[in-house]
């Protein structure tokens, strides 16, 4: 976060370790996993693995940014996969049914508009009626998926509109290695841009600081004049838009629109964000930590595949990682709170001025 920046600048890089949200430990853990895997399987340490990790991480990465936003503000959202499917599938189904191709930007804009609308539903239910976020989004998740299948369609669309289909194989970097050509997918570019925007937004805008403030104490936020309801609504709308964006990317990567896609991705995403240091109780979390968390989950998943661990165990591993993240938070939360007891400590007034 922000204010320690000065102190850090003063006393050098080392004093930042491990970072406000323990990002340093996470980076070290990530390096450790990579090192161990590279030693165990030399094939692991390659550009190909790197690019495929990035490719696999792209969609959870986008979702994780959304989850970070709500976690920071003291909520949680489990409806983003449903919003992602609803928005992306509907955008494609509606246009292809009419035999039109809205174009790359048109399709994304349509999907994200739908995503905003669905996010607005969450936001209004949560902010206006002060309902618990987990239950609201659990409910809307079921409703969105059901409503889409009932009203939009349930057919598997194997042929995406041309404007989207041609993105599936477009690369931003491609490298020839002895193992063949390996490439970095073009969609990482908008993801990186989004990530930077969100990082700046959280750190340097009043909106971002309001999200942290609300996550810290919503009543206190209201009392200093922060528009709590509006901020919450906007946050959930943003999450809806990010979910829709992630859904589109997932569809392009999979080269098909499947109404049953993205089931169970909330586990991977929330695990990654919590592992990245965002507090499930709100008010804490950083973009850097979240990105590291996403990469860690992806690298571990990838490694398990490489070692030949069955899929069921991958799920179990991600579940364990989530518990580990929460456990680490609980443990870390107990430690520094043991500051000098207020009653004994002298007040912080210097000799009378």
């Amino acid at each position, binding site marked *: 976060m922000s204010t320690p920046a000065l102190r850090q600048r003063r006393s050098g890089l080392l004093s930042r370790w491990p970072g406000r949200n323990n990002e340093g430990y996470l980076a070290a853990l990530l390096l450790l996993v990579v090192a161990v895997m590279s030693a165990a399987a030399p094939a692991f340490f390659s550009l190909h693995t790197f690019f495929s990790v990035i490719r696999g991480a792209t969609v959870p990465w986008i979702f994780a940014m959304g989850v970070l936003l709500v976690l920071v503000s003291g909520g949680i959202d489990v409806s983003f996969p449903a919003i992602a499917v609803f928005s992306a599938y509907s955008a494609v189904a509606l246009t292809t049914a009419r035999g039109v191709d809205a174009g790359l930007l048109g399709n994304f804009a349509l999907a994200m508009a739908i995503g905003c609308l669905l996010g607005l539903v969450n936001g209004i239910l949560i902010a206006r009626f002060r309902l618990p976020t987990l239950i609201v989004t659990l409910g809307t998740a079921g409703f969105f998926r059901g409503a889409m299948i009932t009203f939009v369609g349930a057919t598997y669309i194997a042929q995406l509109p041309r404007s989207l289909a041609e993105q599936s194989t477009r690369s931003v970097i491609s490298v020839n290695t002895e193992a063949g050509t390996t490439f970095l997918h073009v969609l990482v570019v908008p993801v990186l841009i989004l990530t930077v925007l969100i990082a700046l937004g959280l750190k340097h805008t009043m909106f971002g600081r309001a999200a942290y403030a609300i996550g810290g104490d919503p009543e206190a936020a209201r009392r200093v*004049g922060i528009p709590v309801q509006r901020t919450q609504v906007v946050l959930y709308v943003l999450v809806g838009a990010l979910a829709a964006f992630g859904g589109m990317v997932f569809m392009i990567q999979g080269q098909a629109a499947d109404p049953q896609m993205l089931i169970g991705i909330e586990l991977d995403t929330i695990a990654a964000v919590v592992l990245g240091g965002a507090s499930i109780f709100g008010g804490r979390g950083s973009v850097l930590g979240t990105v590291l968390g996403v990469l860690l989950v992806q690298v571990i998943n990838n490694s398990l595949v490489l070692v030949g661990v069955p899929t069921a165990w991958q799920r179990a591993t991600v579940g364990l990682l989530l518990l580990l993240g929460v456990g680490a938070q609980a443990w870390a939360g107990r430690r520094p709170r043991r500051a000098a007891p207020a009653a004994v400590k002298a007040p912080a007034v210097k000799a009378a001025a």
Partner: protein
Amino acid sequence: MDISPAPRPVLELRDIVKTYGGVHALDTVSFTLLPGEVHCLAGENGSGKSTLIKIISGVETPDSGVIVVGGERHASMTPASAIAAGVQVIYQDFSLFPNLSVAENIAMPRQRAVGGRFYSARAARPIAQGIVDELGLALDLDADVAALSVADKQLTAICRALVSDAQIIIMDEPTTALTGAEVTALFALVRRLQSRGVSLIFVSHKLDEVLRVSQRLTVLRNGTWVATGAAGDYDRDAIAGLMTGKDIDTSRVVSAVPADAAIALEVKGLGRPGAFADVDLVVRCGEIVGLTGLLGSGRGEIAEAIFGVRPATTGTIAVGGHPVRIQSIPDAVAAGIGYVPEDRLTQGLFLDDSIADNVVAASVTAFAGRARLLDRARMLAFIQSVASRLRIKAPNLSLAVRSLSGGNAQRVVLAKWLMTNPKVLLLNGPTVGVDVGSKSEILEILRTQASAGMGVVVISDDIPELYSACHRVLIVQGGRIVCELAGDAVRVETIEQRIAA
């Protein structure tokens, strides 16, 4: 009223009316705040102080009346317009952001209020540093507020108010969570704020303290204005009388306890390394014994050890002449010891459960009938009788305890332990956060219980209270009982001197 005509008030409330569901919370109340004064707002729980503050700070809208701030008339305020008009409230819970740094807590709301869409940590720091230096404080600007002591949190909240150009600062029960030294430091700061031209409204139960810094005083009772005047014109008893509408007796009332009365509690050589040592204590049936000392002296730990919260490692405890081994709370309850903890909200009550359930919580097994089912009728009758004996004021006993005022909540805790019929009752700060009227009633309940044969131990900071009710007062220093005052030696000044010694 005796408002001097000279200075124009910075804040004026005229004929404010506020009703909640037909009940008058405030009935045509008027109030003026003069520039640079400290104005104490006194009243019992439920007198309308909190409602008045909420109306000034824009959290509540009055039904009728006029608010004049800085010469401008308003029918009502919003939180934003109150802040813009220079009104800042230091809430009892401080309303800070525990997850953000001190610097951001101080500077961010102001940067917001002046219309910034962007936040700059680099700009925030000098703003925060400026006010901290100006007030001569030693706050760590980079620390998370969650890691601060209560006093430092309060200072952070004050800095935030000042940075936001506060002209009027309202402090809600500012001294409740502070130690004596911290209160002195706070009052020094209050005088410095005054010299900057800030006007302050103090809301407090602790009249002695507040009168030390206030120039004027307004008393509310049951939602109506009772009196306004120079603080120096009133003494403690006069204010208490105005607050309650009846004469409050703070004189010493102790019944005679025969020297050969049975011993309710006898503690010998009690100790726990790092907390207290060699504690000898005898409480006779019918006796109220006070235990006092500075915070951190170990007085609370002694009580907690007797009740098995954190058991002692050495020494013996006997209840009613029988030695008992107390290693846990159930041991203590079985031995006939009751304990009213210091923080009743978190330690003594199930806030969301009904009054009746709370009252019976510690004694529910006593109402097992045949087949171990509860004998509901007998239980309810008993709860009713205890509740009326303790005069718990509530429309009915099925309401959640959360809805009760401080004095009534404390009575529920007391009722809970009286239901168990303990031989010894320990009370830690029995009247903290309780208004004067309830306070004297609670002391009266203790006297009644004692004369019925119970041994009572009161752990308290409130010296007038110890003076008023205790047969003997023991003073704890550094984990040892260093002094015992009995009979005529129990005097407010003597106790104060010995504690400070």
